[in-house]
């Protein structure tokens, strides 16, 4: 079985193996013990949990885990696990690093295509299987009677913030970490005869992830418009060091949209800081 960790991965190639188990599961209640001896404090909060799980053998049922170069924590995690395995300190599945290059330049596009092909060769999957495994981009907002609240920003650990939104009478749209890691690169053309090239084009142009060169303010404006949100929460965690640079532009988008919004920055990923209560108070004042 194969799991994935990080954004901007060629998921169709993984699915084509018939052994893709989805994003690496993260046990949010895992006590971190030995992992804190190996990993420093500024990694994304999922990382020490996953490293502890790796050390405890929780991932031993997996054969391989594919990490993304498009996320700094994910790529460093790969090197840490490889080193711990080399030194005989942990076992577990084989770690693989997928190198995605996203600079809007021909050399980066070709680099990404080369790496998609190398991964396909490593996993022993051919073009026809990959082409069949291409799926449409996801991301449709939930539809229903209730007004929608968009939760944008950092990927959430689970649905705990969704629950706070829903308890206030809104439908919630926002990505958990697993959804973020399991997100398709974008619209991948099917039936081109060269699926690796098609996947590479989609990855290279992806608007998702910290390495994307897409305009983050436009990305948020587009999500607001497509979702028809009647309220919005921009939630960023303390460890978010990339997208946070676009906070001023994102604030402007929210203000210009006229959508009632709440901006929460430097927050605790586990939402132990009262974020749920703040969301409840905010949505109680939003009239729809």
């Amino acid at each position, binding site marked *: 079985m194969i799991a994935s960790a990080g954004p901007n991965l060629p998921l169709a190639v993984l699915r084509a193996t018939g052994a893709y188990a989805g994003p690496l599961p993260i046990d949010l209640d895992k006590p971190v013990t030995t992992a804190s*001896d*190996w*990993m*420093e*404090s*500024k*990694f994304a909060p999922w990382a020490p949990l996953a490293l502890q799980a790796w050390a405890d053998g929780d991932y031993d049922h997996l054969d391989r885990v594919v990490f993304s*170069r498009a*996320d*700094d*924590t994910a*790529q*460093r995690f790969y*090197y*840490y696990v*490889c*080193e*711990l395995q*080399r*030194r005989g300190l942990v076992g577990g599945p084989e770690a693989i*690093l*997928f*190198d995605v*290059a996203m*600079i809007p*330049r021909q*050399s*980066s596009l070709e*680099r990404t295509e*080369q790496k998609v092909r190398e991964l396909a060769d490593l996993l022993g999957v051919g073009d026809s299987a990959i082409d069949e495994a291409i799926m449409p981009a996801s991301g449709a907002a939930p539809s229903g009677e209730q007004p929608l609240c968009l939760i944008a920003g950092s990927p959430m650990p689970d649905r705990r913030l969704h629950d706070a939104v829903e308890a206030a009478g809104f439908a919630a749209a926002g990505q958990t970490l697993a959804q973020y890691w399991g997100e398709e690169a974008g619209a991948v053309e099917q039936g081109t005869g060269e699926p690796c090239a098609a996947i590479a084009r989609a990855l290279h142009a992806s608007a998702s992830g*910290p*390495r994307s*060169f897409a305009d983050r303010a436009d990305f948020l404006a587009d999500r607001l418009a497509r979702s028809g949100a009647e309220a919005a929460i921009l939630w*960023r965690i*303390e460890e978010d*060091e*990339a*997208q*946070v*640079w*676009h*906070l*001023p532009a994102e*604030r402007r988008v929210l203000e210009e949209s006229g959508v009632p919004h709440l901006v929460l*920055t*430097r927050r605790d990923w586990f939402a132990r800081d009262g974020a749920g209560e703040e969301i409840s108070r905010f949505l109680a004042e939003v009239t729809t």
Partner: protein
Amino acid sequence: MSTSANQRSRKTLACTSQATAYQKAFGQELRRRVVEDREPYAIVQADTPHELFHAMDIPIITNQWWSAYISAKQLSNRYFDAMVEKGYPANSCKYCSLGLACTLANDPETAPWGGLPTPTIMVARLTCDCIQHVFGQWAEAMGSEFFPMEAPAWTDKDPQWFAHAKSDWERVYQPDRIALMVREMADLIAVLENRTGRKFDEAKFHHLMEQINVQEGYIWEAAQAIGEARPCPVSIAEQMPNTMIPQWHRGSDWAVAHAKKFRDEVLERIDAGLGASSNEKLRLMWIGAGVWHDPGFYQALEEDPGAVFVWSMYMPFAGPAYIRDLKDKPMEALASRVASMNETLHLPPWMSSWMVSEAKRCGIDAAIMLLPPDNRLSQSGNKLTASALEEAGVPVLMIDADMVDAKSWDHDRMVGMVAQFLGERAPA
């Protein structure tokens, strides 16, 4: 900050003051070219191929150097506050963003040099998740052009990289990574020629690469001698400026001559039996960036209990990271030099294996490691390196402190902490 902080370091080499004087004059010359003469210039990260700009005689302002310059003028808090006022969170990564903060503050009255004019281009390698956002916004704010360069994944992980980097660099640094970087550098040269009208001279570049090998060879030779010598002739407080200042000007006649002068002074002290301390009993390794705001820290325990910092990364890094057999492929050799600076200093197995090897080479008794609390890039690889050193018999003290933030540093407390650690783990 303790009142005892910012202790000055003792200088024993004549070339140390010469290096700092040269750098001061260089700053004035750079200002003249960039601000007064309005030459085309570039703002670049420290780990970009400076050699291309040197070969084209295009002045560069290195982001890290500019940040240090702003900090030295006590302006960092003012500019970071201005950034927060513009809506950025206060915890945004400060390591590479002080220049952006200075630009966003838009205060020519206080800005060094009255603020920088618009650069022709801004160049950064994408070694972390935030740098493309910092440089992208900085370029936009300055009306300039951002030329990002990939930091491709290094999956051929040879723990003995440092032993093969000089002659077997094609294999060590991975052919596909070198090829990508060479292609990007060709694109960069084309952009520079187009924007500045200056031509890339291949013969000049080739000569520059040869001269860099000569320069770094002198530094490496001195590093080897320091590792073997008892007592250590020169503390890291003097190793650092004599390595780093010439490295900003690598390949220039001055840099080559200065590296030779430094080596010669080191060898003279060894021949004369002179040590940084008259009482050397413990040889220490410093892991992390230099504590620039308190250089006296490194010499505080030299006489009692005789603990001498003989190793920091800057000087011995000159050998494996810089020296390359050119093989008539100078552009590829340069790519191999630039492509892996971050990994070799901050990721296993490269960082940990090299430092264990260096500890053995230099007869290290204990290591002191800086663990900046707020910077993943600087923290990265530290704990695994510490455990590898401990396994190799080298006790390690990790200090939670920042290399640029003097507010969190108390000289007396830090010296006391090291003294206590040495007393417990590495008694003289």
